[in-house]
């Protein structure tokens, strides 16, 4: 009798046991995957419902004629500078240094943004004048409606170099063309 049972086990139970073992391992993996999924979705950064200051929203910078050519105006609550170039075009330049994220001040006498942390320097267009910064300062998209400059600080534009098409023009600025 016992002999028969052993035979039966090896013949029938072993594949079944193998199958069940694999099933358990598979279920274990599924549980692990679920855990990872739950934890990562819990910890994933969320966009805060109320942006701090003006940052993250569309900022109304002001009428085009309010900015003189070849000038830089700081918008501390929007975390950007509005630069008006010599040709009358606008750039909304992020104040974050592209090297390690320090806040760059506009130094009027040098006509440059100079980072206090590692002395990277950028010109009025945000282009790198002196490394270690690897790329120009980031931009925010500008729309000019009815000769009023609007800056969308919710969307950051990373760029590898300055190109003329990055500059936004108002109606009167474009006339120069």
């Amino acid at each position, binding site marked *: 009798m016992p002999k028969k049972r052993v035979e039966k086990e090896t013949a029938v139970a072993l594949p079944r046991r193998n199958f069940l073992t694999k099933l358990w391992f598979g279920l274990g993996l599924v549980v692990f995957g679920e855990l990872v999924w739950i934890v990562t979705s819990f910890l994933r950064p969320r966009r805060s419902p109320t942006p*701090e200051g003006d940052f993250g929203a569309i900022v109304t910078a002001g009428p085009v004629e309010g900015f003189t050519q070849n000038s830089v105006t700081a918008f*501390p609550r929007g975390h950007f500078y509005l630069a008006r170039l010599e040709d009358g075009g606008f750039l909304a330049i992020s104040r974050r240094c592209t090297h390690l994220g320090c806040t760059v001040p506009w130094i009027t006498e040098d006509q440059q943004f100079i980072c206090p*942390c*590692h*002395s990277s320097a950028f010109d009025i267009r945000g282009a790198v004048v002196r*490394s*270690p910064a690897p790329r120009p300062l980031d931009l925010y998209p500008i729309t000019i409606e009815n000769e009023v400059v609007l800056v969308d600080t919710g969307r950051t534009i990373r760029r590898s170099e300055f190109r003329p098409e990055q500059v936004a023009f108002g109606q009167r600025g474009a006339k120069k063309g």
Partner: protein
Amino acid sequence: MTSPSDRPHADPGFFKRIRLSILSDPVIPHTDLERKRYLFRNLILHFRPATVPVDTLRFSLTWGLGGMAAVLVLLQIGTGVLLKFAYEPTPAAAYASIQSLVAGVPFGRLIRNMHHWCAHLLVLVVLLHMLRVFFTGAFHPPRQFNWVIGLTLFCFVLIANFSGYLLPWDQLAYWAVTVSTGMLEYVPWFGFAVQKLIRGGPDIGPATLRIFFAVHTAVVPILLFLLMGFHFWRVRKAGGLVIPHAPGEASLDPPEKVPTLPDLLLRETVVALALIAVVILLAIFFDAPLDDPANPGLSPNPTKAPWYFAGLQELLLHLHPLFAVFIVPLVAAAALLTLPYLRYETDTGGVWFASRTGRIAGIVAASVALVITPVLILLDDWLTHPGNRFSDIPAVIGDGLIPFVFLLAAIALIYRMLRRRFSASRNETIQAVFIFLLAAFIIMTIIGVWFRGAGMKLVWP
């Protein structure tokens, strides 16, 4: 207090019955047998062995560093729990809560200072402990994996320090963390995502403080404590510490042993008490810094990473970011992890610096690094002076690949020369290379901390 001569069978009174139900042994054991029983039956002491080899008690083997690290962790838990009652983890309230802690809470300043100095000491002590283990060859089998656990513990200590750095929410904290997490942007593929995860968004803000607070006060302490238990357990499973002996001299087998209580525990207590005294003295006489409240609109000049990242920040000034913050640390971590798994001719466990040749090679390597590192830094500073920075070679190759390959070639050359010319063993050679890189890193850290002024320009301190 009961005297040990009390007979346990003489019908004890009410309070004595309660005491015996908690601890049936005498409070202070007097005989060897009583001490042994005490060790076995005490929850905290029972994970220690009953006896230890007498030679491992030598202070010049361990310098008490592992024990010091454990004491510092306990102090951090104690002071940290207290601080948690006074601190508010929101950008609006954090700075003020530290101010009122320092000014208004009785002993608030002392507890905060202790927490601060313990944190710095912990990094230092763990680092020295690691060097001790390496230089006494205590990573050979069966202690290989404990080296890996130790490295992980070191990472946890760094994370604990770094996450605590932000909490005061002052200018120092805000910008040091901005710069340090800014380094992550240069890690290819996943660096940006990791940075966003750590900061809880693109910038340092309320979410960052929340995350750092949770990591600092829950995640790291729990993991650190669990892993410490694992670390200690592996020490015991390895038969205790390596038994020290002079180069070329064999150690006794089996080693002569002495009871843990009192021989080891008394020594540990002395070290612990001395360390606590040092911490309290530091906390009394030196205040933990508190700068102006964090101002995201104004970066102070200079902005520096915490001192344990200063070497990395110095590297970042000379190498392309991809290499400075990704490839070099990755290679260094991989090298450290594989150290105990390399093939060595001899087990140098218990011999300081492996052998006489090892000592000489180590001194030469350290001296070379001591000269070469400042010279290279000055040379690079002169070469990259504003104006002659840009060349036709892309920065990744000119500032990254070429110096990196040059460094690897220099290491390979040193390795070959030591092996061939001086017929050093692999133990001695790898140790010399390790010392060379360590000395270079220490010098970079020193330069980063004391010799970098406004705009990160080289200055005399």
